[in-house]
């Protein structure tokens, strides 16, 4: 159960509001670009900086979980943040040639749409005034958005792989003082194999949460986070 005194609640309210505004702005940029390009191309150029900023900011959520400000395991928080950040900062940022392809566009669209629902829901829950429709939206929108997001992420990585391999991007070569070697290409290939399993676990968990929250009377504002 989360420790939530008044100061904590004000802070969380502020944090979630800032994130909501931020991601609404990202969505705005994405939709603008979508209208202009009439396709999912060019999204990194249009929204990349904004998305990167707010994704980086969201690392605070790991801290929140670690100090008990919110419920949920810090490990889960870390893994989810690291997954997205790896794709955004590790892969997409490193390969200009593939940054503006539709995969990245789909990813940004799915992320932004999810976040402009998730953050208001958190804010409203903290404020103790969460309308039923918002809870419904928060626990329903993910059903199409998560698969689209994951497909976008995996595709974006897949697009970038040949460049990463050829240029040995983000790798660490030996010899060095720490005897450390890292092959980012190999790492990503391994990750892509794991992705469907990791993602499926998260998806099932959310579906289970959905049944719990929407099954019974979801009208009362719930302070507990998953």
């Amino acid at each position, binding site marked *: 159960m989360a420790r939530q005194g008044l100061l904590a609640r004000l802070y969380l309210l502020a944090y979630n509001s800032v994130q909501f505004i931020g991601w609404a702005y990202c969505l705005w940029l994405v939709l603008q670009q979508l209208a202009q390009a009439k396709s999912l191309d060019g999204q990194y150029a249009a929204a990349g900086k904004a998305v990167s900023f707010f994704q980086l900011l969201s690392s605070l959520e790991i801290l929140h979980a670690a100090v008990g400000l919110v419920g949920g395991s810090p490990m889960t928080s870390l893994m989810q943040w690291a997954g997205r950040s790896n794709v955004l900062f590790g892969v997409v940022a490193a390969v200009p040639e593939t940054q503006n392809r539709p995969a990245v566009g789909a990813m940004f669209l799915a992320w932004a749409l999810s976040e402009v629902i998730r953050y208001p829901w958190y804010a409203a829950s903290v404020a103790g005034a969460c309308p039923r429709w918002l809870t419904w939206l928060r626990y329903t929108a993910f059903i199409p958005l998560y698969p689209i997001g994951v497909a976008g992420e995996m595709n974006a990585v897949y697009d970038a792989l040949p460049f990463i391999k050829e240029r040995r991007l983000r790798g660490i070569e030996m010899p060095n003082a720490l*005897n450390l070697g890292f092959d980012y290409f190999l790492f990503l290939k391994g990750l892509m194999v794991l992705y469907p399993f990791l993602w499926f676990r998260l998806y099932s968990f959310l579906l289970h949460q959905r049944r719990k929250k929407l099954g019974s009377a979801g009208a009362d504002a719930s302070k507990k986070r998953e």
Partner: protein
Amino acid sequence: MATIKLVVKSRGGRELLPDGLILPYNATVDDLKARFAELKPYFYPSRQRFTLPPREGARSGEALVSGKRLSDYGLEDGSVLVFKDLGPQISYRTVFFWEYLGPLLVYPLFYFLPQLFYGDLKVPEKSVAQNLALAYWTFHYVKRELETVFVHKFSHATMPILNLFKNCIYYWGFAAYVAYFVNHPLYTAPPVNRTYAALAVAMLCQFANFRCHVILANLRPAGSAKGYTIPRGFLFNLITCPNYTAEILGWVAFTTATQTAAAGLFTLVGAAQMAQWAVGKHKRLLKTFDGRDGREKYPRRWIMLPPFF
């Protein structure tokens, strides 16, 4: 001898034994499990788990622990017990044997057969650090195997069979990961005196760890439940889990001796897992030895890593 008839239900509420389970009221939990296994041989005792019916709002009730009696739980004629099948079980001893065997076999592969792992990189003569690392690593895991066979007292402990695969993947995987970098043709050794000093410290930690294991083994007469005695003597007077302390410091020393990031990662992950176990053990001991009703009070001790933890 007063006997009672117990009703056994599955977690879904289904009655599993039409005639119930008839036992003396002061029979032990082990008697209960043996009798259940007679009636349902598929469920050998170590895969049986019995709990009291859950209280309002709780997910499950208290579990019946080996060594205790039915009367300790207030079980009487007509009481209900909830049964859960824990799945195929494997003994701790068996798991330990296989998980520690991997490192013994896998690490030397990288040392002796570099052509298998490093492509056509030219393999220079091995440094002192690499030679000593092989010796230390081998010694460490041989020690673990010997302790598994001769020292550790496992009593009834079993775990689900899937854990064998998880644990082996962890140990065998990390063995390969560390061995790959320490035995790499492009390996850079730290100053040799540092290696000597660090491995000397590591060996001290190994002896300390061994002594802790012997003390722990002597605490528990075979077959009794966990946490019956407060460990004392040697480092146990100061720390709840000094065996983990020595183990972690040993690996820190190994990392220093080899100056290899992979060894550092192995140390960190191991330390994190041991920290979790240590907290659990510390809490159990505090709970068992709460100082009330004539029981001893567990003394103030560090959990695993003084001075912080």
